[in-house]
């Protein structure tokens, strides 16, 4: 049964590979851009969902101290996911012939709507799959009276996952109404459901990694979920600015979705607190690397970049340009992709070896840095390319791909490919590492570096313990750059840019804001991890006082 869950995660990673290779740089030909892109989006969603399902099914029994209900259903679900994924990949290429499989007023084969391209057949099978997931998860959990906050988070998460999916299952003839309901699925999935599952999974993984009690993270999970829903429910309005819905949405969307980063700041702060609850060395470094990466990119990609484009006055420029995928890639892959990879790095060694840290962790670290810098670079390329695109397309009104627009954006297109390549290599390393974890351990145990190999220098400078004040300063730094980016988007409204066509101000602000934001992010994660790694050296230097420190820190 446990092997099965493992398989789940692996399927997720296999799909990840396919996803990366599909990066839409190869134009036209036998596989048109739109087919590749819809597959890119769909596989991105499916592998992350597989990761969620795998993680939930793994932590569910641990959390409830009960056996997983109906393992045969999960086995069935596994094959169903494989089958439905192949079906979806197959049907997407029908778009090149313009066949949607219209029957009874519904497109049964493929739908041609961004993010929910799957046809009705796909939708129905996925709905059944979600229903099975709900059943298994809720049966595995104890009675509702005994639920803790994480139970609630995951339980509500899987049920809401299923309910929200329903809104993408009917054809809408009006464009405005269609977009209205499409964002029910897309926004409420991400902002209302995935975030909830994310918070809960981060919570339980922190419990497992740092051996803190569920009670300690429980209140963070509770407040996190509450804030997500309070800000996200009306925050959906930021998708209703320009799709043919009335102007009043601009007010509600700007106001409430500006609050959406709040739960992320909360979550960010909490991972700092929990990671510093005691000073034990990290047993499973890659798992923590990915979880930290996930929480930080949630902050930067979803929180800060989302914030910059959430006001009607900034969104009017970012909407429909490359500025948006900078946010999209960081928020989706950064937050959710890194989280399920972190969960995999926790679960796979446990399943294979039964012990959390018993494997060669070097490849995992390498994979993390490749993927992490790759996705940040990708976002930077999209953001800067988007800044140029906003000027050329919206201010000057040129959009001729090969004539006016492309020459100015060539540099950024090359950058996207370059960082995409780094990301793909990182993904390859991770997939290889996770697939061979069990065997590697046996082979390389002899050469596994002893903790002492890490220079046992005193914990000062870059690797000294991270204080709360310093973490707060880093966070503040990110937000300052975030505000600069917001001013960059706002500056397009100024007469000097909009009427006189002078791009200097937005270019300068973007040139400071984006690289500054991403550099701060990279340095912060480096700093955080250096401080965590230093504990290994500390532990090796002074093994005696450490247990006491652990005991003392745990109380604090």
């Amino acid at each position: 049964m446990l092997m099965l869950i493992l398989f789940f995660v692996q399927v997720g990673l296999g799909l990840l590979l396919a996803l990366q290779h599909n990066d839409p740089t190869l134009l036209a030909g036998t596989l048109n851009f739109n087919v590749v892109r819809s597959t890119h989006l769909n596989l991105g969603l499916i592998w992350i969902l597989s990761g969620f399902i795998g993680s939930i099914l793994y932590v569910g029994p641990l959390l409830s101290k009960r056996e997983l209900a109906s393992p045969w259903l999960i086995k069935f679900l596994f094959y169903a996911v494989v089958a439905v994924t192949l079906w979806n990949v197959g049907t997407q290429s029908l778009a090149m012939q313009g066949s949607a499989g219209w029957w009874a007023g519904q497109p049964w084969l493929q739908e041609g709507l961004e993010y929910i391209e799957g046809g009705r057949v796909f939708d129905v099978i996925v709905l059944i799959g979600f229903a099975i997931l709900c059943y298994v998860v809720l049966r595995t959990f104890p009675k509702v009276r005994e639920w803790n906050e994480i139970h609630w988070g995951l339980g509500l998460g899987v049920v809401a996952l299923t309910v929200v999916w329903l809104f993408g299952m009917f054809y809408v003839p009006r464009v405005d109404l269609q977009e209205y309901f499409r964002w029910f699925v897309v926004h409420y999935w991400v902002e209302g459901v995935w975030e909830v599952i994310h918070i809960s999974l981060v919570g339980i993984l922190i419990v497992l990694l740092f051996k803190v009690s569920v009670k300690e993270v429980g209140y963070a999970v509770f407040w996190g979920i509450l804030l997500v829903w309070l800000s996200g429910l009306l925050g959906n309005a930021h998708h209703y600015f320009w799709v043919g819905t009335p102007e009043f949405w601009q007010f509600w969307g700007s106001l409430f979705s500006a609050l959406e980063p709040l739960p992320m700041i909360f979550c960010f702060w909490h991972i700092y607190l929990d990671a510093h609850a005691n000073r034990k060395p990290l047993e499973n470094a890659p798992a923590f690397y990915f979880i930290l990466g996930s929480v930080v990119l949630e902050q930067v990609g979803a929180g800060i970049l989302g914030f910059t484009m959430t006001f009607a006055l900034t969104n009017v420029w970012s909407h429909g340009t490359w500025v948006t995928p900078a946010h999209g890639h960081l928020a989706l892959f950064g937050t959710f992709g890194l989280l399920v990879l972190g969960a995999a790095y926790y679960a796979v060694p446990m399943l294979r070896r039964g012990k959390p840290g018993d494997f060669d962790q070097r490849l995992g670290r390498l994979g993390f840095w490749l993927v992490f810098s790759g996705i940040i670079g990708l976002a930077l390329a999209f953001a800067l390319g988007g800044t140029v695109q906003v000027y050329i397309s919206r201010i000057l009104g040129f959009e001729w791909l090969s004539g006016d627009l492309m020459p100015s954006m060539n540099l950024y297109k090359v950058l996207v490919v370059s960082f995409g390549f780094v990301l793909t290599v990182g993904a390859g390393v991770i997939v290889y590492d996770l697939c061979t974890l069990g065997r590697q351990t046996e082979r390389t145990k002899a050469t596994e570096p002893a903790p002492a190999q890490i220079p046992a220098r005193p914990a000062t400078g870059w690797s000294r313990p991270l204080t709360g004040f310093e973490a707060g300063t880093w966070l503040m730094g990110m937000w300052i750059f975030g505000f600069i980016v917001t001013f960059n988007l706002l500056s397009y409204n100024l007469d000097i840019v909009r009427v006189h066509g002078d791009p200097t101000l937005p270019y300068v602000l973007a040139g400071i804001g984006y690289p500054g934001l991403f550099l701060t992010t990279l340095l912060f994660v480096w700093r955080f991890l250096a401080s965590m790694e230093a504990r290994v050296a500390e532990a090796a230097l002074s093994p005696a006082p450490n247990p006491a420190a652990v005991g003392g820190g745990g109380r604090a």
Partner: protein
Amino acid sequence: MLGLMMLVFIVLSGFSFLGSRNQVTPDEITFGTHYATDGKKIFQAYNCMDCHTIVGNGAYLGPDLTKKYAALGPAWLAAFLPSANMWPTEFAVQTQLKDKDIAADAGVDTIEAYYEKYPEAKERVQRRGGKPTYMPTLRFRAGEVSQLIAFLKYTSAMNTEGWPPKVMTGSLEHRLELLHGRVAGSAAATPAGSSSAPGAATSAGGGAGGAVERGAQLAQTLGCAACHSTDGKKITGPTWKGIYGSHEKLVGGGTATVDDAYIIESILKPNAKVVEGYPEGTMPPYEGLVTDEQIQDLIAYIKTL
């Protein structure tokens, strides 16, 4: 608190779709005999949204399509969509304007008036006409192009609260100067000057070279090459490579030998005998638009392929 917010959301949603808002709906819009409601299904069937954006949502490869009907007009779109691999020439747009439905929908019937009404069409014809595009040719079935135009007419009529933002940086020349700098300003004017008079080019082309060269030139300026390849590739129409003297199966049975008479008929009344495997009604009739000399030049060119 959460309930209150949900209430606010539901009330706002209710107001969003009230009939009194006068937001246009697709069942109110037609193009000729085609409905926007059908066009939307075609739009989704070809998954246009994963290359283009519509109301700003979708992929960021091609331009946003929401207001393209208003900017380019039906004749340009009708000339472009069937053979999207090449930008329409002025002649190709003119040919579409001969169609009664299209002219009625555009509200004008001369190319000058059309350019006046749809300046972006003018800019495109002059700067890009006859050049290759990045869009693959989609082999639309009969009627699908008109349905798509109906759909784009609908999205153009939608009130999107001022998005995409209005371009306020002035004339085309000024904007080109801002983009490419002063030096390129004069360079940009040159292609505009040379291609702005394809009519002149076609007649002037008559003087230079033999019939074959003139035919090859005409295939470009008349826009034939947008649909008919010369390298054997199957695009919108049958390839010209090796077509002369071949026997083609026709829609509705029978075969035709491709000789002078068949080519002349196919140019003037293309829907009389359509080759099997190609949709009817895609090629516009060129009766009254091309001279006999031009046709003879084209035949001479086709024979060499």
